């Protein structure tokens, strides 16, 4: 099942952990907030994506279906 990364922008406080763990899919804007690739997470990055989700200090990053 293909999954997509989504940030809850209210919960996100710009720690930047996601961009460190998953630079292939997450970059930071000039204020330190994540810009997430809207396309489905490629299978090869599945594990890294899960790690980034688990590591978010604000619990703001989620993997959603579709």
């Amino acid at each position, binding site marked *: 099942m293909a999954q997509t990364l989504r940030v809850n*922008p*209210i*919960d*996100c*406080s710009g720690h930047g952990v996601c961009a460190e763990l998953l630079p292939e899919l997450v970059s930071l*804007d000039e*204020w330190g*907030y994540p*810009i997430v690739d809207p396309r489905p997470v490629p299978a090869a990055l599945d594990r890294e994506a899960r790690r980034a989700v688990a590591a978010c200090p604000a619990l703001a990053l989620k993997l959603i279906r579709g």
Partner: protein
Amino acid sequence: MTTAVNESAPESAPGGAARQAAGLPRLLPALEQDDLRGHLDRYGPPPYRGQPGLLIGDIETSGLTGRGGAAFPVYRKLAIVARARGRKVVVANGAESEPASRKDELLLRVVPNLVLDGLQLAAEAVGATEAHLYLHSAATPEIARALAERSARGLDGLPVTITQAPPRFLAGQESALVNRLAGGPARPAFQPPRVSERGLGGAPTLVQNVETLAHLALIARYGPRWFRAAGTDAEPGSMLATVYRPEAKTQVVEAEIGTPLRTLLSSGAETRAWLVGGYHGTWLPVPQAAGLTLDNDSLAKHGAAVGAGVLVALPSDRCGLTEAARVTGYLAAESAGQCGPCLNGLPRIAAALAELAGPRHRQQVRADVERWAGLVTGRGACHHPDGTVRFVRSALTVFAPEISLHARGQCSATSRRPFLPLPDGIPTSDDDWT
């Protein structure tokens, strides 16, 4: 087109006979306040269907869309809430938080009973167990009187709880409304789930603008075919618009959807540009936009939308850049401050516009605005950054010649008097969200 005028006598409009066939005016036949007896003489009691669900088919056939700004098909929200079980909530949203809009205030003053009929009929249609009215002010005398008279006559299926909205631009946004009704600050929430699925206290919650409910109350009486006799196929019916023109008082107009904009707004030499859809709306250059009509299909071709029906013809003696910068400063201050890109980007965009509106600016300012506009778009929990960017980008396009003038230390305006209305004081503390 029918015109209701704030603080002065109503004007009659041309083309009366043709309009009459479409049944206009529909919402504002009486410009004096309609008490319950007058309302019942005109319309009779609310035509309850006797059980939930029955009205929804008529609303679907009518093609009624939300009049609060998003133009979402009303029957779809009704159907989502109707099919849920247990506790369900219906809210009439009268917290007209767009500073330039006056139509909901007028509607609630002139035909409060039509709005309250719509609230009760929508409540029956979805099988609601709670009814709320959300207002920018405390209950007005008109509302308080209407509720008391209706209660005495036993007209309402559910008692109506009134909640006051804080004077903030985003207070009327659906999820902000639900947060306020729950006793919290009127700040938007991250969605999904939508409030129609999980709203107040987790209950499916139907939120409809008060004008939408007034239309619903008329459709329940006269049927979808009557409703569709006005408007376009995609957007049937009439709508209220708040109209600003040079040398004229602010007017609330009931217009058929699809009405040519040039019949509502001036387009001659006295007009510098149009703003359609309010402060999340779009600036349009007058000669190019003169053929557009008041409906989303037509406006979408120019990147614009009807929104909550704010229509402005900016007088040619004012500076569009200055006006846009002033409003952008307001919009930046009205960020709920919850999402990083909006919190950081909007004040920077506003400062850049202020610089462009001043005499001379740094070379990179326009590129900065464009970059920040890209960075905030689509990255908020609500549409505040997106709407602000639409307003700003269209201003930079339409007023490009003015930017060049300002860069040389000039300005084509002869009046410095602000034209677009803003609230007197912009609140800033956290308390102001409740």
